[in-house]
């Protein structure tokens, strides 16, 4: 007897791989773990307008590249312009035209989906900041304020926090009032940080609000500490960001550069939208070309085929469980799975009634065939043909009666039905009707349980979207194949062996 260890290691690996793959899919591709989940998405229109000056024009426009938002779709409208989009760290759209005159409009439209990943991380510490030199008129006032705060702070972050509080203080000192009279609060904040060599930068962000038009980007300051850029909103005296803020540009560059135009400006309008989380993640994978091991790259017809096929492991799992652990007898090992597959098309009640009717009719006809003394092959073939007649008849009758449910009996696998009828008929002749009801009842019971498992919407969602689940099922089936304990029915069967002692 060789060691069982490799087997268990293999099973554990299957388990881990299956669960890992599913979690990866859920988190990395944001495939929702439950069906019917909804996500918010934002449709944002940016309108760039400027006046042409009859000269060649080149417009550089920064595009959002914020880890807090995934780009679902983006497109531009700019008739007559050449367009290049650079996809490096500083994403940028560059429009160009040989000659422009009069008011010009360029449009950029993007659909963003929040990811919840709000931190801007940067492992590389920014190069030493150039110390800011104050103008002579401001130097004394600024150095006094900065010096005091610097003394009271420990880190870049606490320094920035206290500076921000001071800037927003209602009882401003004279020094501060002087500085604010010549600088905007944001710029002053940045200068103060830079004057002490604290790595900080000015970024542009767009606050998302539903159904807003003609919005502008606002300026924020980011301060670097311990691998993360922390966001400071000076105007609202707030540190940190919420998920309604898109950082449109945070590499320190400008948002809009227009060469060969005047009066340039950019306006944003936005709209909130709710859509299915699953559809969103599929669209996302399409744009990212990340459809690895997803069945969504198949044509629709094959997809729906696989939706059915991938339910079979669930049915098989139910059958293995009910036979190995519970000990229910069925006629034909996997016949219940096929019947359950048919139930999915017919729904349970219609399926059960249809199945019983077909088998009962089949048994009657089979009892006539058995008096004819036919060879087995031709008898089964005759039963198959008769089953087709019965199904046709039922379909016609239910159509005439206006019972649309009856039309679905055509989904029953006919060969399986014929074999079921044949086996039941032999069982009837050899062991009597009681055994037929026991075996038939057992099969229908297993089929019903399998159907209930397979028709569950969460199960259907999981088997198709998280293929790793099938590895887990495989591992479970392998483990159950090792089960040497008592079956539930054996506890009853062997009861006499303990009762008398």
């Amino acid at each position, binding site marked *: 007897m060789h060691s069982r260890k490799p087997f268990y290691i293999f099973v554990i690996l299957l388990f881990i791989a299956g669960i890992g793959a599913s979690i990866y899919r859920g988190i990395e591709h944001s495939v929702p773990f439950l069906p019917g989940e909804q996500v918010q998405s934002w449709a944002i229109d940016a309108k760039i307008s400027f006046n042409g000056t009859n000269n060649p024009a080149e417009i550089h426009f920064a595009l959002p590249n914020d880890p807090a938002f995934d780009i679902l779709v983006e497109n531009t409208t700019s008739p007559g312009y050449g367009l290049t989009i650079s996809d490096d760290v500083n994403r940028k759209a560059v429009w160009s035209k040989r000659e422009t005159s009069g008011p010009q409009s360029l449009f950029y439209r993007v659909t963003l989906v929040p990811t919840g990943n709000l931190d801007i991380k940067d492992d590389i510490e920014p190069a030493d900041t150039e110390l800011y030199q104050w103008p002579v008129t401001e130097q004394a006032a600024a150095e006094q304020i900065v010096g005091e705060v610097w003394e009271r702070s420990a880190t870049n972050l606490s320094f920035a926090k206290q500076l921000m509080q001071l800037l927003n203080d209602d009882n401003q000192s004279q020094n501060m009032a002087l500085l604010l009279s010549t600088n905007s609060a944001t710029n002053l904040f940045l200068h103060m940080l830079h004057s002490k060599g604290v790595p900080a930068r000015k970024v542009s962000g767009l606050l998302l609000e539903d159904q807003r038009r003609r919005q502008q980007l606002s300026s924020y300051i980011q301060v670097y500490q311990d691998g993360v850029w922390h966001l400071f909103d000076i105007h609202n005296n707030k540190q940190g960001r919420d998920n309604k803020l898109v950082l449109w540009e945070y590499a320190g560059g400008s948002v809009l550069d227009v060469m060969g135009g005047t009066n340039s400006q950019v306006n944003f309008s936005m709209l909130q939208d709710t859509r299915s989380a699953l559809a969103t993640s599929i669209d996302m994978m399409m744009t990212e070309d990340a459809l690895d091991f997803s069945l969504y790259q198949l044509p629709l017809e094959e997809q729906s085929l696989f939706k059915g096929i991938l339910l079979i492991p669930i049915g098989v799992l139910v059958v293995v469980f009910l036979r190995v652990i519970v000990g229910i007898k069925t006629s034909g090992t996997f016949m219940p799975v096929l019947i359950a597959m048919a139930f999915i098309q017919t729904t349970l009640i219609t399926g059960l009634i249809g199945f019983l009717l077909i088998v009962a009719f089949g048994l009657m006809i089979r009892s006539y065939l058995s008096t004819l003394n036919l060879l087995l092959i031709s008898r089964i073939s005759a039963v198959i043909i008769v089953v087709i007649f019965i199904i046709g008849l039922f379909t016609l009758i239910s159509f005439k009666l206006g019972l649309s449910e009856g039309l679905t009996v055509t989904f029953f696998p006919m060969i399986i039905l014929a074999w079921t009828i044949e086996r039941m008929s032999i069982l009837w002749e050899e062991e009597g009707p009681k055994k037929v009801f026991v075996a038939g009842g057992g099969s229908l019971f297993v089929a019903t349980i399998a159907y209930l498992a397979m028709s569950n919407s969460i199960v259907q969602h999981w088997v198709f979207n998280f293929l790793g689940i099938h590895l887990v099922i495989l591992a479970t089936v392998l483990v159950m194949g090792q089960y040497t304990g008592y079956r539930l029915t*054996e506890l009853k069967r062997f009861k006499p062996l303990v009762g008398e002692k």
Partner: protein
Amino acid sequence: MNYAWPWELSRAGVLNMNKRNISYIGRYNQRKFYKRVDDKLITKELALANNIAVPDLIGVVKEQHTIEEIPAMVEGRSGFVIKPAKGSGGKGIMVITKVDNGRYYKPSGDEVTHNEIYRHVSNTLSGLFSLGGKPDVAIVEGLIEFDPVFDGVSYEGVPDIRLIVFKGFPIMGMLRCSTAASDGKANLHQGAVGVGLDIATGKSLHAVQFDVPVDKHPDTHFPLSNIAVPHWETLLHTASSAYEMCELGYLGTDMVLDKKRGPLLLELNARPGLTIQIANGKGILPRLKHVESLKGPTMSVEERVAYAKKHFCDKPLF
């Protein structure tokens, strides 16, 4: 409480289906030897080569067109048995106990027409009774004239003796007696009575029908508590030597007692059922473990039988 707790069963040493399949059949029965027991024709040939007595072979029907030869084959016999060579669970065995002017009768006295025999054999050849529905052949065997010592023990049929042989040691035995409910067949799930037998003496220990303890035969009312199977020593030897013949570690042997010829080997089973434990009122697992733990040189048939008789004796539970 109709259910036992698993630990109660495990304490009683009850072998279950899953453990039988994995730990005994899977481990001790090599698949390549299965055909020696699954095909009764091969079993018969092997038994004859090993000097083990079997019921005499009247003929074999291998093709549909030779079915008509059956009446000629059984000409002059008082009865015969038709069975599929690869049948399982006693399926497809037709017993004719009376032949009268070319008309055949079942043990129950019902007539079996030529048409029914034709259809039965035809079904057999098509594989209706064989494992996995494979095409099969039908064996026509002589009827066993069963030993009158069993008169009253069995109703309309031959009682047969099932011994579980593990690695050549007979470790548990039972007598299977047909009843009206089992239609002359000795299969417990069809309603035959199972009588547990003491390995040391061949005396009855306990009896069940449909897994429920009984002390009288339901049809003949024969008291089942004082049965002593004759030729017990020969039965143990035959069963034990079947191990060398088919090389299956976990084996069920089915034997019958013929009036003139003594114990005959009916068939071997590579997947013997678990009901023998209920018939004996005892779990088989301790004995299996006992044999598994045996070390030392391989024993001869005689040594194994003597060892089994010494270690696997029991007290009656009636």
